[in-house]
Structures are given as structure tokens and as C-alpha cells.
């Protein structure tokens, strides 16, 4: 079956549920969960999943309905002592509360329409009277406040602050953002090459081995190969890759067109 009303017309999942209950002319206390769930899911299917936030709220309600439905299908434990553990109870409570405020909102709407028919006027106090500014009497402000009291307040804040510290997360190390400068690295590698002429790829990371640095260095090497300033060789599979620097000078990244 289809429901010929646009979904945006509903304030939320509870609103839709109320509409379905109303439409089926059923007692809120006796919701036929199976029927309502079906209609509800039908509705969600028609929904254009444009807004995930809104969609998820409706889905949570659908999941709740399905959960209640499945709980009602299960045989009740035989030795159940507390009677009336109706799985619908919580939902009914929520619906009733929501219905109450929806109803109050309608009442307020009428009130507002009536109240909108009166006109107020802006203040007309002469400027010179308004401009007069009174000094704030500090004594009065601190009236009744003692240092002991102020100290109590301070202590309670400090205590709250200590309690607020997450015992697990506070032990995590700091996450630092690292800055890798490609153009600087481009020049650095050449400088190293000019001095050492032949060196292994590994050597480049003697003291810097962050992932970002390796990636940037690797990119620089590729570029230097491409423009013919270095060549590489590897004698056996899995051996170190050796880099041979062939140029006699250093060029900047911009000159290399990198």
C-alpha cells in the first residue's frame, strides 16, 4: 500500500508513527506492531535518501518496531512473574508524551494568533537620561562573599577538572602533524648525491623514517631519474637499490619542472 503524503510533512519518526496509528484508527495502547511496521517500512522505502541524518532517525524507529515485533513473536518465558512486560510499553510512553506536546503546540499556535493583534511601542526615554551610566558598587557585588567561600568554589572547580580527565585517553601520546617540504627534500637528496656519488636508497633515511618522508623522498628519486640526473642499479633481487648521482650541480624543483 502507498501513503500519499510527502515525507517532509512529518516532524520525525514519532510523528510518522502517530500518523499511521491515526490513519488505521487504532488505539495507541494497542498498536498492531506487524501492520504498522509494514506501513512504516513502506514509507521509508519511498523516502528520498537525501538527508542521511533524517533518514537514520526514521531507520532507528523502524528497527525499534521490528525489534518489538520479533519480541512479540517469541513465546513469553513461562515463569514470567512480572505481568504486563509488554514490549510495546516504552514506545507507547514515548508516543503519548510526544502526542501531548504536539497537542500543546497547536494550542500555543492559537494563542499566538490572538496575541499578535496587539501593538507595542518602542521606548522613548530621552537620550540624556539613558546615557547616564551608573558605577557598579563593588562592595555590594561581593556582599556575602567571603574568601573561604571563594576558595570552596575554586576547590570544587579543581576537583571537577581532575575528575574530568579520562584515565585512558589522557595516557595517549601526542599526535603531531609533520611537515615535509618536497622542494627542500629535492635539493637535500641532490646535495647528498653530490658528496657521496653512489649510495643506497636506505641511506637516505638514516635519521628520518616517517612514512611521509619516505614517500616524498621516493617521489624525488623518481623525478631525478626521469630528468636523467641519477640512475639506479640493483645487482640481485631484494638487494639494496644503489643510486648513482651523475650531475655536477644541483637544480631547484622549479627548474626541473617538477
Amino acid at each position, binding site marked *: 500500500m502507498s501513503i500519499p503524503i510527502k515525507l517532509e510533512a512529518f516532524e520525525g519518526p514519532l510523528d510518522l508513527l502517530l500518523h499511521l496509528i491515526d490513519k488505521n484508527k487504532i488505539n495507541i495502547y494497542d498498536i498492531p506492531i506487524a501492520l504498522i511496521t509494514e506501513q512504516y517500512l513502506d514509507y521509508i522505502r519511498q523516502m528520498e535518501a537525501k538527508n542521511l541524518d533524517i533518514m537514520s532517525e526514521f531507520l532507528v*524507529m523502524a528497527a525499534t518496531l521490528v525489534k518489538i515485533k520479533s519480541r512479540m513473536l517469541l513465546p513469553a518465558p513461562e515463569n514470567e512473574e512480572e505481568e504486563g512486560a509488554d514490549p510495546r510499553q516504552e514506545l507507547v510512553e514515548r508516543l503519548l508524551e510526544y502526542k*501531548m506536546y504536539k497537542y500543546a503546540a497547536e494550542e500555543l499556535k492559537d*494563542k499566538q494568533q490572538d496575541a499578535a493583534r496587539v501593538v*507595542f511601542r518602542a521606548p522613548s526615554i530621552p537620550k540624556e537620561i539613558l546615557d547616564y551610566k551608573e558605577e557598579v558598587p563593588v562592595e555590594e557585588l561581593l556582599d556575602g562573599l567571603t574568601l573561604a567561600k571563594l576558595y570552596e568554589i575554586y576547590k570544587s572547580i579543581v576537583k571537577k577538572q581532575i575528575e574530568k580527565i579520562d584515565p585512558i585517553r589522557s595516557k595517549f601520546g601526542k599526535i603531531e602533524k609533520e611537515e615535509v617540504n618536497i622542494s627542500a627534500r629535492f635539493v637535500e637528496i641532490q646535495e647528498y648525491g653530490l658528496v657521496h656519488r653512489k649510495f643506497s636508497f636506505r641511506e637516505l633515511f638514516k635519521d628520518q623514517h616517517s612514512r611521509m618522508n619516505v614517500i616524498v623522498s621516493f617521489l624525488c628519486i623518481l623525478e631525478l631519474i626521469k630528468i636523467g640526473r641519477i640512475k639506479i642499479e640493483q645487482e640481485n633481487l631484494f638487494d639494496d637499490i644503489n643510486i648513482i648521482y651523475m650531475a655536477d650541480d644541483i637544480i631547484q624543483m622549479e627548474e626541473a619542472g617538477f
Partner: protein
Amino acid sequence: MKLEHLEARIEAILFSMGEAVELSAVAAAIGQDEDTTRKIINNMADKYDSEDRGIHIIQLDGAYQLCTKPEMYDTIVKITHIPKKYVLTDTLLETLSIIAYKQPITKLQIEAIRGVKSDHAINKLIEYNLICELGRLDAPGRPLLFGTTEEFLRCFGLKSLDALPAINPEKLADFRLEAEEELQLKLEI
């Protein structure tokens, strides 16, 4: 001081202030105690009710304000353009009614009742000066507490929060009846 003079002063005060004035402020300005002042204002209110007056005194949570009588609306519209009061959408009204009846209340509590995120509605209501922050709840995260403003009372023609429309007692009775019937049914099973 003659009673008439005191009345004149109060009229001048309410007229020039424009906004709602606390009883205590009026009392201090006319040099009378609050009880006397309240009586004088009530007496004035009766006079304003006379049919040759177009304005009257309204009461807002213990403060007083002058405004035109509702039946003057059509006349005033003829001479001036009355700025259209914002129309509150159903979303805003729903959120506002929850705040009005349950204040002070946190955003999370509002959302629990409505079943949907309510940031936008709350921000709009604050923008319209219908609700305001009332402080913070002493709970983890120290969430903000919201409540209604004087402007709310004015916009909805309420003297105080006690004047909020009672949630229809008949409806509530119906609900209860239904619930009882339901219970009976259960017992029969």
C-alpha cells in the same frame, strides 16, 4: 501623594519605557511599596478597560507593559504597516512547547522527546528571542539548559508560565480510559 498623581506617574513610566517594567521598579520609582503599587496598577487596569481607551496594561510574569487592545488591530493596520510577526513552523512550535512545559531542559532531552535532532529549531527560537539559555546542567559535559523568555509570554499573550494552556484534561482522561479498557482486555485473556 494623591492616588491620581501616582496613577499618572505609572502611566508615564509604562508609556516612556515601552518595554515591560518590573513591579519592583515601578514601586521604587513612585516611592510606594509593591503591594500598594500592585493595587494601583490593578485599579488603572480597570480604567483602561473602559471603551474610550485604545490601550491597556498587560502583565508579564510580574512586570507590566502598555499595549494596544487586540480589537484595535484593524484600525492600526489601516494607518500603518504592522510588521508581520514571524510565522512559527510546526517544527518550531513543537520544540517551543516542549521547552515551555519542561523548562529548564537540555537539547538532548528535547531531542529524546521529539525523536529528531533539534539544533536548528533551538537556534531559530533563540534568534527569535523566544527561548534563552538558563545556565548549565551540573552533569557530564555541562549541557546548556533552555527556558522561555519574556518575549515568549508576550508573543503568546500569557501572563506567566502558569497561564500556559493546560494540556486538554478531556483528552488526557480519554487516554486514561483507553488504557484501563486495555488492561481489562489483558486480564480477560
